[in-house]
């Protein structure tokens, strides 16, 4: 870490965070849900100005969701993963929209795909799914195969049409145009 961010983070935040150097230029910081915004604000003031991405992971066996913010610095070229865990039954997270406005569609997508709620985000309407009424599809307890079998298969749709025009019938010589 060229800018010594690991040591400075430990000094600044103490036991509120849990730091680990994953790779030469990649740092992982785990923290509590209510401390994430403090940490992100501090990182932004430490020249980590770019939020590359935000994602969500479903740890169904631990009954938790994990949110990850990917933060990058153009000066030290380091990549920091800020991670936090949420209860899977009632997952909600403070919105980071006041730190990075462009986090809005990421939160909107996570809300649509996992059902994580972001109070303060002005628009959590549907983004990609059409007329969706089932479980959010990227949750592990949503079985995509069963969904596909129940909706798109020949049994579900009745693919065999109630008409026989699809079969080209044998043509007699008098019907055929060649017979003219």
């Amino acid at each position, binding site marked *: 870490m060229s800018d010594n961010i690991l040591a400075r983070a430990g000094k600044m935040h103490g036991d509120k965070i849990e730091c680990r150097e994953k790779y030469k230029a990649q740092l992982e910081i785990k923290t509590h849900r209510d401390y994430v915004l403090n940490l992100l604000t501090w990182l932004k003031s430490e020249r980590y100005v770019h939020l590359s991405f935000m994602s969500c992971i479903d740890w169904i066996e631990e009954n938790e969701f994990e949110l990850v913010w990917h933060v990058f610095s153009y000066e030290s070229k380091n990549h920091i993963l800020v991670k936090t865990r949420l209860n899977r*039954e*009632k997952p*909600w997270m*403070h919105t980071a929209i006041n730190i990075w406005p462009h986090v809005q569609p990421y939160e909107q997508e996570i809300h649509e795909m996992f*059902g994580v*709620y972001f*109070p*303060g985000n002005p628009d959590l309407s549907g983004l*990609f*799914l*059409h*007329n969706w*009424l*089932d*479980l*959010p*599809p990227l949750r592990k307890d*949503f*079985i*995509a*195969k*069963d*969904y*596909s*079998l*129940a*909706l*798109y*298969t*020949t049994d*579900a*749709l*009745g*693919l065999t*049409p*109630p*008409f*026989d*025009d*699809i079969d*080209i*019938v044998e*043509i007699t010589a008098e*019907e055929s*145009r060649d017979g*003219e």
Partner: protein
Amino acid sequence: MEMDNLYLANLREEKQNMWGGLVNYFRKRSMWMLYYCTGCGAIELPPTMTSRYDMERLGMGPMATPRQADLLLITGYLSVKTLKRVIWSYEQMQEPKYVVGFGSCPINGGIYWDAYPVINHLEAFIPVDMSIAGCMPRPQAIIDAFEKLMGEIQEGKAIGYKRYEKHYDWYKKNQDAVLGRTEAVLKPWNDPFASNPSVDELMALEKGESNV
């Protein structure tokens, strides 16, 4: 039964019209296509169109809008959201119109058969005149399919648009089953935050829970 068969009816109609065969000849020789680049198949079209395989020698060319096109190409997998747009485009096209499905995905879902947003059988929603198997089909296969389609147009066999008109209720039923659902397919989703609570309310709720 024979009277109900659209193909025979079409043939008889064409026979009564002295220009039937001639019109078909010109139709097959000037097909303008609207390619719906839904999936990976679109990448096979540039080599088919440009000098190596040269689609234009068959009288085919790209067209900008559905209202001026004769041929709709579904190049690859179709998601539910795209299906709606495909149906709109198809219904805007003027008759006679033909549909070609590229690759395995419009036939049976291909490698996306168990994915939640991808439909499996295109022919349940709009009539498909020609399907090209493969993932993806090479330009040779595409040219071959177009030549076969031209043959079918000449013979009066490519009558998907008439089938759509005659059996519209069946197609519409399938379209509505996928696009106009009113209830959940597997398990309805009860959003615990449906009332849009604020942060303060949520914090108070969690504190109350932890005290209990």
